[in-house]
C-alpha cells in the first residue's frame, strides 16, 4: 500500500458510520510514550533522533500488520505530509517538524504510530462515530506489542514520562470530534463549550490545538492524564460527557425544525446552491457551507446525497487532497478554482 492508494477513499474516521454519528464524527485515542534512557526530542542531537527513529521504526514495523504502510516524513513531499494531516493520521506539529521522523499507518487507517512527534512515540487509534472502547482495545494492544521488545520511560509514582509534564501519567489523550451546527444556530454553543471546560476538557477546532472551529466541528479532549485510570478517563466521555452533548445538539435541531423550519431549510438549500454553482471557493467557506448539509442529511431534510458523499466532499476539498488528486502543486487561487470545479462535478445533477 502507498499514499496514492489512500486518495481513492475517505479513510476510516470519515466513514460517517458508527454510534451517534449524526453528531459524533469521529473518536480518537492517543498514547504518548518515550524510550527509557534516551533524551526527549527537546535535547536530542540529530544522531540521537536518528537512533530513536531507527529503533522505533523497526519495532513498530514488526508490531504492525503486513499491509501497514510506513512513511518517512523527513523524506516525504510537503503536500504528502499535509495530506496525512488532513486525514488526521499525523498532527500538524509532526508534519512541520524536522529531522528523522515517520509514521506507520494501518491498512484501514484506524491506527497510526507516529515516531518523533513531540514524544518519541504516539500511538493513535481513530474511528468513525463514537467508538472509544474499540479504539482503546486496539491502542492498548499496540502499546503492549511494541513494549515487548523495548522499555518505555516509566516512573512508579508519575507513570509514563513525557516531554511535557502536562501529559505525564497515562499519557492518554482522548478526543471526540463533534458536529454541532444546531447548538451554534440556537446560540447555545458557548454555554456548552464553557460547561465542557469546567469539566477540565479542552475544546478545539478540527485540527487540534490553536485551530478554529470550522464547519461547526469541535474537538473535545481530556487534559488531565494523571491520577485516573485510562478506563476512568474514557468512561467519563462514554457515560456522561458525550451522550449529554449529543442530547443537547439533537434538542437544538428539533427546536429549529419546529420553530424555524424555513430558516433551517433556507440555510441548507442556500448552502447547496452556492456549493454546486460557485466558480471559485476557499477551503474555509466550503467547510462552512458543507456544515448545514450534514445536519440536513441526518434530519431527513436534504437528500441530494448521503453522508458518504458528504465525507468525500469534506475531505477532498482540502488543499493537499485537491493537489494529490490533480497530481500537481497548486497555489491558493488555482486551488479555489479546482475546488469549485470538483464540487460542481460531484454535485451536478446525475
Amino acid at each position, binding site marked *: 500500500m502507498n499514499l496514492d492508494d489512500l486518495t481513492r477513499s475517505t479513510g476510516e474516521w470519515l466513514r460517517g458510520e458508527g454510534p451517534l454519528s449524526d453528531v459524533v464524527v469521529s473518536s480518537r485515542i492517543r498514547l504518548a510514550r*518515550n524510550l*527509557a*534512557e*534516551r*533524551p*526527549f526530542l*527537546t*535535547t536530542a542531537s540529530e544522531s540521537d533522533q536518528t537512533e530513536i527513529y531507527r529503533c522505533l521504526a523497526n519495532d513498530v514495523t514488526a508490531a504492525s500488520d503486513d499491509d501497514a504502510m510506513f512513511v518517512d516524513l523527513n523524506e516525504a513531499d510537503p503536500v504528502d505530509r499535509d495530506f496525512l494531516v488532513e486525514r488526521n493520521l499525523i498532527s500538524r506539529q509532526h508534519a512541520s517538524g524536522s529531522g528523522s521522523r515517520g509514521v506507520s499507518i494501518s491498512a484501514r487507517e484506524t491506527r497510526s504510530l507516529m515516531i518523533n512527534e*513531540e514524544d518519541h512515540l504516539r500511538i493513535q487509534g481513530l474511528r468513525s462515530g463514537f467508538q472509544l472502547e474499540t479504539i482503546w482495545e486496539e491502542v*492498548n494492544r499496540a*502499546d*503492549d506489542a511494541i*513494549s*515487548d521488545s523495548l*522499555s*518505555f*520511560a*516509566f*516512573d*512508579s*509514582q*508519575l*507513570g*509514563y*514520562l513525557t*516531554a*511535557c*509534564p*502536562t501529559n*505525564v*501519567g*497515562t499519557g*492518554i489523550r482522548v478526543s471526540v470530534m463533534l458536529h454541532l451546527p444546531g447548538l451554534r444556530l440556537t*446560540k447555545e454553543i458557548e*454555554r456548552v463549550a*464553557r460547561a465542557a*471546560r*469546567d469539566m*477540565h476538557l*479542552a475544546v478545539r477546532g478540527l485540527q487540534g*490545538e490553536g485551530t478554529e472551529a470550522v464547519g461547526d466541528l469541535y474537538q473535545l479532549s481530556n*487534559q*488531565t*492524564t*494523571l*491520577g*485516573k*485510570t*485510562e478506563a476512568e478517563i474514557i468512561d467519563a466521555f462514554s457515560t456522561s460527557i458525550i451522550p449529554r452533548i449529543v442530547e443537547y445538539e439533537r434538542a437544538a435541531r428539533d427546536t429549529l425544525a419546529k420553530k424555524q423550519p424555513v430558516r433551517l431549510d433556507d440555510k441548507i438549500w442556500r448552502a447547496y446552491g452556492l456549493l454546486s454553482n460557485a466558480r471559485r471557493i476557499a477551503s474555509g467557506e466550503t467547510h462552512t457551507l458543507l456544515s448545514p448539509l450534514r445536519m440536513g442529511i441526518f434530519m431527513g431534510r436534504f437528500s441530494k446525497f448521503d453522508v458518504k458523499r458528504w465525507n468525500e466532499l469534506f475531505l477532498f476539498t482540502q488543499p493537499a487532497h485537491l493537489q494529490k488528486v490533480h497530481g500537481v502543486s497548486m497555489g491558493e487561487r488555482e486551488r479555489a478554482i479546482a475546488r469549485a470545479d470538483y464540487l460542481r462535478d460531484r454535485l451536478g445533477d446525475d
Partner: protein
Amino acid sequence: MQCERCHQAKATVHITDTVPEKTERHLCENCAESEGVIVKHHHPTTNEVLQQFLKHKAATSGADDITCPKCAMTFNDFQLKGQLGCPHDYTVFREFLLPLIERAHEGQVRHIGKVPKTAAATVHRQTDLVRLRRELREAVAGENYEQAAQVRDQIRMLEDA
C-alpha cells in the same frame, strides 16, 4: 424569554427582589455577569497552567542551579522551553515539578493507570494498592458498603502477598 437588557439572548437568569418591593428581572448569562449578578468561573486550560508556571519564577527559586547530569538541561531551560530534556529530569527536578504537575492534573500526583508489563512486580502491586485505596474511600463516601467490603478484601490480599 428574551433578556430584558440586551433584548437578544435568551434570559436564563431570573431574579426576584422582595425589598423594597417585589420586582422580577430576566437576564441572559452575559448581562447577568456584567451587572455582577453572577460570577462565571473560568477554569484555566492545562496549557494556561503550564504557561503561568513557566513565567512565575519566584515559585521555583533555588532550582536555577540544578542541572540534569544526563541531558545537561537546567531548570531555567525547562522554564524557557516548556519541555523537559530527558526522563531523568523528573527525578532531578521532582520537588519543583510536583506543584506544576499537581495543578495541571486536578490535584493528582500519583499514577494509578496502566503499568508496563515489564515493570517490577512491586510497581504493579503499589499502583494497584493506591488505586484500590482510593476506590475504597470513594465507596465508603458513597455509602456503597458492599462494594467497599469487596475492595477491602482485595487490598488485604495484595498487602499479604
